[in-house]
């Protein structure tokens, strides 16, 4: 029994890490650009496919493929911001929301049409190996996922705190106009934020694709969950997104453990309703619930 619990603890952490990659990007985009991108899940899905193609068809090393995916989908995200979200900057919140929904629909179904609905798995170099932790065997695969996401999150934190771009990001987040007056190229920064968000989501997709499967519709639920997690953590708060992701990951994992797995989908929505009923600004949010 306790072996199950330890597995669940690890699985919850793994889930939480993947969600963290998605939620952090989502909250950055919302916090700084005030855009809610409901196509975020599709960037995750594209990341999965990109990694899959590189590994399976071009025989590229998994980790190299992940890095390449981060860059490629990141750049793609940059252009999506330029082409779709920039022109809508003055549009109402509602319209931007709707446009991102349309984008989500478009991308997911385009991939469905082009790649077919088959589920595919991405080969992982150390699959099948496991090590022993606290008397339970844990797959190396999961450990690597954890380490990778931890690394990425720390890297992001370092960039934000210590680099010039990071400073510009922080300035833009705190006061966009003032940042512009200091010479920050706001358009460029917005593109960069979106690219970071896309890149992180893409890596999440690649990692999940190796743990489970890649398929065109895989983005919808995680995209939704990223939104819920960000609400849970507080819109615009990176720390909130990280914490919220962990809570969410564990909530799902333990629901599957103690109840049926078909209730897993419900958990997310119930969490959402609870948060909105009791603390709409989330764990760390101080922003308006608008």
């Amino acid at each position, binding site marked *: 029994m306790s072996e199950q619990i330890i597995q669940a603890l690890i699985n919850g952490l793994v889930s939480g890490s993947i969600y963290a990659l998605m939620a952090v990007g989502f909250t950055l985009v919302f916090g700084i650009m005030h855009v809610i991108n409901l196509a975020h899940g599709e960037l995750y899905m594209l990341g999965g496919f990109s990694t899959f193609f590189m590994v399976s068809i071009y025989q590229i090393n998994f980790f190299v493929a992940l890095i390449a995916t981060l860059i490629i989908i990141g750049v793609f995200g940059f252009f999506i911001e330029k082409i779709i979200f920039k022109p809508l900057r003055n549009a109402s919140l509602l319209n931007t929301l709707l446009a991102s929904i349309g984008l989500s629909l478009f991308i997911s179904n385009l991939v469905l049409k082009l790649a077919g609905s088959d589920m595919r798995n991405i080969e992982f170099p150390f699959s099948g190996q496991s090590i022993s932790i606290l008397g339970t065997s844990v797959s190396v695969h999961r450990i690597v996922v954890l380490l990778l996401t931890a690394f990425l999150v720390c890297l992001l934190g370092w960039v934000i705190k210590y680099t*010039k771009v990071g*400073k*510009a990001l*922080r*300035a833009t987040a*705190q*006061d966009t*106009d*003032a*940042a*512009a*007056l*200091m*010479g*920050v*190229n*706001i*358009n460029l920064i917005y593109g960069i934020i979106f690219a970071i968000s896309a890149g992180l989501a893409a890596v999440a997709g690649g990692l999940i694709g190796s743990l489970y499967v890649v398929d065109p519709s895989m983005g919808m639920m995680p995209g939704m969950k990223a939104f819920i997690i960000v609400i849970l953590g507080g819109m615009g708060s990176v720390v909130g997104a990280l914490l919220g992701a962990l809570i969410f990951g564990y909530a799902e994992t333990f629901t599957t453990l103690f109840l049926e797995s078909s209730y897993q989908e419900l958990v997310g929505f119930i969490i959402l309703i609870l948060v909105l009923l009791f603390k709409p600004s989330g764990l760390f949010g101080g922003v308006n619930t608008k």
Partner: protein
Amino acid sequence: MLNIQDLCVNYEKNQVIKGISMEVKEGEIVTLIGANGAGKTTLLRTISGIKSSSSGSIEFMGNPIHKMPSHKIVDLGIGHIPEGRRVFPEMTVKENLEMGAYRRKDSKEMKKELDHIFELFPRLKERISQRAGTLSGGEQQMLAIGRAIMLRPKVYLFDEPSLGIAPLVIAEIAQMIKRLNEEEGATILLVEQNANLALKLSHRAYILETGKISLEGPSEELANDDRVQKIYLGYE
């Protein structure tokens, strides 16, 4: 230095600035006075590029800047100190000042320049590691000015520096503005609601009413003008 011709600026369907022409010559302190809603802040925001104009032109040292993005306008040498100070609240005093040097590549001079700012504003040195959001209004204003000085601009745009500041501190700020102009030869466009202060500080003045210039001239003259005295200086 700064030349504005027939500028029109809209917010959606509302025309806020309806054809303004004015200029600021090198080394001058020019002030723009007007009531709330007259369009003063909009004008400054349009000059520095964070708001776009719908027609007319703005030239800065011969360069047309009315279609330029704001970061390039900063490069050209315009330093806008916005209304309400707008310091970066989560950053320290030091980080705020360093943001002023964001565009520049040479950070070797940074220490020297920071020291210079602290010379001008000793209070800021005391609070060097404090988060800017916790400073008082007057201190934030000084920080905002210091940050702008770090830009090493050729023209300063001051947007209502006296707003919400205690009178003693206002005097300090006024002194600073004068000092910038006289000692460092800075050209200044000062937008103010406090007409008294503005007319005393400046060489020339424009009066803005509902988007149009209704009066202009040397500040001393305007200060002695009957109508100005009644409406803006509060005389009876």
